């Protein structure tokens, strides 16, 4: 049985799971995918992390991004809201990016430009474009719907469930398939390898460090590598906290006035 997974969890990941029920001997694919999705994206009811991204392009030039990301689940495993508040570089300081993630249909996205006091709505049809110029994609941040791929369990070793995932609608994505390694104990997606139309691996997303935060396994360091052109982005998640009691800050009000959880 196949269903999809979101591997992307690696990025925002930070936020997720409720205690995992004792794993059965051989869970079916749907269970693995569901569990991994929750572990990677739905830890606690809400969460916060300070993110530092280091982007290295194919020629070795380095850029950095620093932002605070806030997340709140509308329903566990379902819709969620994200609020990203930029601190660096200084030309994007205090800019805010907000997403209302939908399970069916396109997400709603907004950008707030403080210098113009402008609340801009962003077209969100293509989720597989770069997030703030990094090697992470929008979909890595807010999660790829588990219903968008067909999932097959292709192997199990001591540590991982290995799944292959094929998009149901290949025209909407740049990959033809991706393989994902899911930790058998924690159900954290640890690595994803994307293949192009020729079946060649070109992109790897990895969780480099996972820590326990308030009982939730949490990726605190992750990396995306562009294998073909070179270049990578490493994200470090500091001060990860769950269940901080975020109110309804995912509105225009708080685009114009950042909530205290997002500010220094």
């Amino acid at each position, binding site marked *: 049985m196949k269903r999809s997974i979101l591997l992307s969890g690696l990025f925002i990941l930070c936020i997720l799971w409720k205690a995992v029920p004792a794993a059965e001997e051989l869970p079916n694919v749907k269970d693995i995918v569901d569990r991994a999705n929750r572990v990677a994206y739905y830890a606690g009811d809400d969460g916060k992390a300070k993110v530092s991204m280091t982007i290295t*392009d194919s020629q070795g030039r*380095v850029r950095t991004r620093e932002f605070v990301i806030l997340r709140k689940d509308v329903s566990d495993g379902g819709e969620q809201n994200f609020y990203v508040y930029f601190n660096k570089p*200084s030309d994007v300081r205090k800019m805010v990016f907000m997403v209302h993630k939908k399970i069916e249909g396109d997400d709603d996205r907004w950008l707030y430009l403080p210098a113009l*006091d402008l609340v801009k*709505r962003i*077209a969100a049809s293509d989720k597989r474009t770069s997030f703030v110029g990094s090697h992470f994609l929008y979909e890595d941040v807010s999660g790829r719907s588990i219903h968008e791929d067909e999932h097959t369990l292709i192997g199990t070793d001591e540590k991982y469930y290995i799944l292959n995932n094929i998009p149901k609608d290949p025209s909407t994505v*740049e990959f033809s398939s991706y393989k994902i390694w899911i930790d058998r104990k924690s159900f954290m997606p640890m690595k994803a390898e994307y293949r192009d139309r020729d079946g060649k691996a070109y992109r790897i997303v990895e969780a480099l460090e996972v820590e326990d935060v308030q009982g939730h396994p949490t990726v605190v360091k992750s990396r995306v590598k562009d294998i073909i052109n070179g270049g990578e982005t490493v994200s470090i998640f500091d001060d990860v906290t769950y269940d901080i009691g975020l109110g309804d800050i995912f509105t225009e009000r708080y685009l114009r*006035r950042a909530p205290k959880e997002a500010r220094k």
Partner: protein
Amino acid sequence: MITTVYRNVISLSLLMFFCSFSGVISNASASEVGDWFYDQYETELYGFVEARQGWRLQDDPFEKDESISEARFQLNLSKEFSWGIGKFKGDLVGDRVMDEVRGELRELFISLSPFDFMDMKIGRQIQTWGTGDLLFINDLFPKDWESFFTGRDDEYLKAPSDSIRASFFSDHANVDLSYSPVFNGSTYIDGSRLSYWNGVRIAGSDSLFNDHERNRFFRDDEIAVRIWKTINGIELAVYGYDGFWQTPEGLNRETGMGIYPRLRSAGASLRSSLLGGIGNIEAGYYDSHQDDAGDDPFIRNSEARFLAGYERELAADLTAGIQYYLEWMSDYSEYESSLPPGAVRKDEKRHLITLRLTRLMMNQNLRLSLFGYFSPSDEDLYLRPKLHYKISDSWAVDAGGNIFIGEDNHTFFSQFENNSNAYAGLRCSY
């Protein structure tokens, strides 16, 4: 010529000096300035230094060849207090076109939330609302058209206003109220920097347009209101405004100077995701009630305004947007019959189409964009091509143009034909 080059070298050297001095040559140290300051004073400090130079692409008998030539230093300070936030943003500008050094206070406000359901911002601030992309109907906050037409960064299109803004939030609806005790007004094209149609001919620095300021506190005041709500991702808003035309749309017959006639407006907007993109519509009625009947040729008539827009990604990192915009004059026959002999007659309807194309390349460090306004009724065109490249986290260059093309001398964009210009800028953010 020599002097020009010499001066440019000086501005550029100054810029380099500022940046080196602040230690922002490398990315690492760029952020350190702000971090160090925050550690010392618990106050955020950031901003930029930039040099910007532009030239007219043709001769203008009334203006300098240089359309812009300035060095700008912007400082932002922001501090959190127990009761709220204080913010300062100011620019220091060395402007060779105007031959002056000036300070521009862009923001100086306090922001607080006296109640759970209420936010306030008091002081000098930038305000924006409405759904148009570089078109404004219900946003009657001040603009700076000189900045827009000469190639300053987009942020300078919005001019500050001295206002008290109170916002109220509830499950039923949200309300923004903005009160300015004295009229702010937009920076319009008066001939000092850009040439324009003065009603008779193209004029410039030889014939500056002057206006009678609206400057009486609490009498020349403005109030703007927006009531808004988002339902299932559909953003709905209604707007009201009571104040004045933002540019001098009237003429004092005796002095020959511009006046800011009274204006009331009401309107509404809707914005939502639509077919994989974003669609928006907005309408407003401008009640120019100092000339109720529309038969005073020296005061702009009332008009209805409407816009509809759609934007979507065509491919990864390629976005296109299109808008249709209409200005529809009320009491057109009164306008026609009251027009002085020899005066140019405006059309009853002004149609405008805009197109935006934005392409991001090189890990989004290079942004190529084109924004175009085309009016089939005025038969004129305004193109804004722009290239912006982030050299590093601190340094960015941009280059672009403001190209005006038209049939007649008097239409909105066509009048600026002699101001068509190209510019380039270098900015170092800290």
